[in-house]
């Protein structure tokens, strides 16, 4: 699914060079649920951004579903983000002046999908996250947990191969976090690969694997379970 070898990512500003990822190698199997942990500034978001084709990398190779993504044009990267990847953010990142329905519609719109098909998918996704009755609400009219569920609906409505979630429960209390986690696990059970950054060790343990990053490198990998089909493969620098 995801195969990174020796990825490096350097942020250069006028004053400093930050090595956000160094010799970063990771292989994620289809259907896996991987939790990413690490201290603040360790490079978790950077890893997700590289994995999600939001950020280019400086060295190494990255194959997504067998495809070498380093040679892709910006348009091709946009198309892959649109069709294969779903994003969930800590801050929900809903578009404030669109209602929930239109928010979920956004990725489908960029896929130039016919309206009837879009409608079917949006209602199904909102049904799945339990927000069917809130379609016409604006994000500001929903609770944090509801907003995050709307964001999940947006991430899954395009049937992505992988969901990248950056601290999806970071802004939520325990009950809400639990709801979100259950939702993610059920999505994963349907076969969607999930990479989730979290600071919560309990949640991390519910993944198949926990990848701990220190200073832009993989420090430890813990195995808690396996995907039915494939077995989790070890990263390079364990």
């Amino acid at each position, binding site marked *: 699914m995801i195969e990174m070898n020796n990825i490096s990512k350097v942020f250069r500003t006028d004053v400093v060079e930050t090595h956000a990822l160094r010799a970063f190698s990771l292989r994620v199997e289809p259907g896996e649920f991987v939790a990413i942990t690490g201290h603040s500034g360790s490079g978790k978001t950077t890893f997700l951004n590289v994995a999600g084709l*939001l950020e*280019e990398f400086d060295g190494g190779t990255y194959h997504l579903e067998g495809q070498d993504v380093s040679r892709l044009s910006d*348009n091709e990267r*946009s*198309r892959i983000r649109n069709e294969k990847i779903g994003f969930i953010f800590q801050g929900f990142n809903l578009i404030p*002046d669109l209602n929930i329905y239109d928010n979920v519609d*956004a990725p489908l719109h*960029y896929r130039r999908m016919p309206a009837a098909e879009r409608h079917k998918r949006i209602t199904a996704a909102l049904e799945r996250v339990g927000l069917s009755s809130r379609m016409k609400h604006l994000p500001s009219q929903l609770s944090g947990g509801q907003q995050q569920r709307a964001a999940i609906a947006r991430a899954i409505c395009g049937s992505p191969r992988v969901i990248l979630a950056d601290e999806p429960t970071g802004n939520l209390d325990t009950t809400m976090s639990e709801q979100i986690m259950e939702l993610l696990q059920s999505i994963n059970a349907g076969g969607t690969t999930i990479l989730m950054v979290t600071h919560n060790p309990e949640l991390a343990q519910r993944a198949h694997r926990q990848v701990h990053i220190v200073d832009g490198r993989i420090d430890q990998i813990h195995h808690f379970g396996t995907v039915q089909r494939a077995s989790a493969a070890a990263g390079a620098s364990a």
Partner: protein
Amino acid sequence: MLLHDTRLALRSLKRNPILSLLMIVTIAVGIAASMIAMTVYSARAGHPIPWKEDKLFAVTMDTRDEGPPPPGLPLRNYEYPPFTLGYQDAMAVYRSDIPRRSVVMYRTGQLVMPERANIKPFYVPVRVTTADFFAMFDVPFRYGGGWPRAADTTAEPVVVISKYLNDKLFGGVNSLGREITLGGRQFKIIGVLDAWMPHPRFYDLSGGGFDLPEDAFVPFEWVRAGKMFPQSISCVRRTSRVVNFESLFTEECLWLQSWVELADSAAHARFQDYVDNYVRDQKQRGRMPRPLNNRIVNVSTWLDMNNVVGDDTRMQVIVAVAFLVVCVLNTVGLILAKFLSAAPIAGLRRALGATRLDIVRQHLTEVVIMGLIGGALGLILSFGGLRLLHALIFSRGLETSDNPARLTLAQSFTHMDFSMLLLAVVLSVLTGILAGIYPAWRIGRLAPATFLKTQ
């Protein structure tokens, strides 16, 4: 896609109503200034008789003295020959049988003595001209027509009058065969013109180009028979002076317009030769010391040589467009700030699969819509501005005239026709694109991850 972009754009405009309004008003003011200047420009820059562009030619000869221009003369286009001819030269042109039609003429003012007692005698501008005038310039007649060429040499007492004069003297009825007293003599009316307003009045630009045609037209020989003195005369020799009526025919003084209608370019070439040969012959006799410089020019060139549009009008357009550019540059900063403040959403859309082009197009649509709203507002402003311009400048002197054509003429300078409306639309879209292209491009180019983090 367009519909979607438009919906997003309107939503975005509503998000910052004050800022949006500010930008729209800025654009509107810029467009209004440009539209006003361009309307006045286009009123002056029009072609009065385009269908005869390759047929009608004004005839000029360089009859001036040698040496530098006399002090006080505007230096602009000193290379052009004078725009009028002296009597002897005009007659030489008129004698040529190369042109299909040939007109020699000038403008004078004569007193009309009305028969009706309740109207006081009044002066009217009169054109003393050879017979071809009406056919050559496609002058429309309401009643009757012009005179035969023979009437030019015999000073036949016939007159063609304008619609205005016919309305004023005869209440607009068919007045053919009736008489009017012009300059103390009786003339029989053989023609009444329909409304006619060549714009500019190209055939005689001595009054600046934007005046009404004359109200009475009489055969050419009336210059002598009626001693009808021309309204403007310029003498090209320092020693030349008009001391009495006869001087008009003997001195080197210019007061006649000469126009020819030529069948084709071959005729033009032959006619040019004819005029050049005439001038060579005159040189042998010690006249016309300057190098050959006889220009036989079509209406466009003629208007251009006479600078009918005017440097002021051109300058106003340049200043107005420059102002619009300043307005656009001003909004570019505001638009960029606005776009950047909403950059996280653009970044989010990128993450969701929008391409750079999607983002650029969406943002550009917003600015183009702003341009169109600004354009609509600008049009309203320019209507107001043009009315004001009309009231303050162009309607001057209208109260003292009972000729409704004066009002039409005055209004023509501030009238926006369909093509100007179209221009306004084009200008609005262009303004939107110009103002939005850089900010939209900037937003499209930013890496998506950079904004996501800021949320």
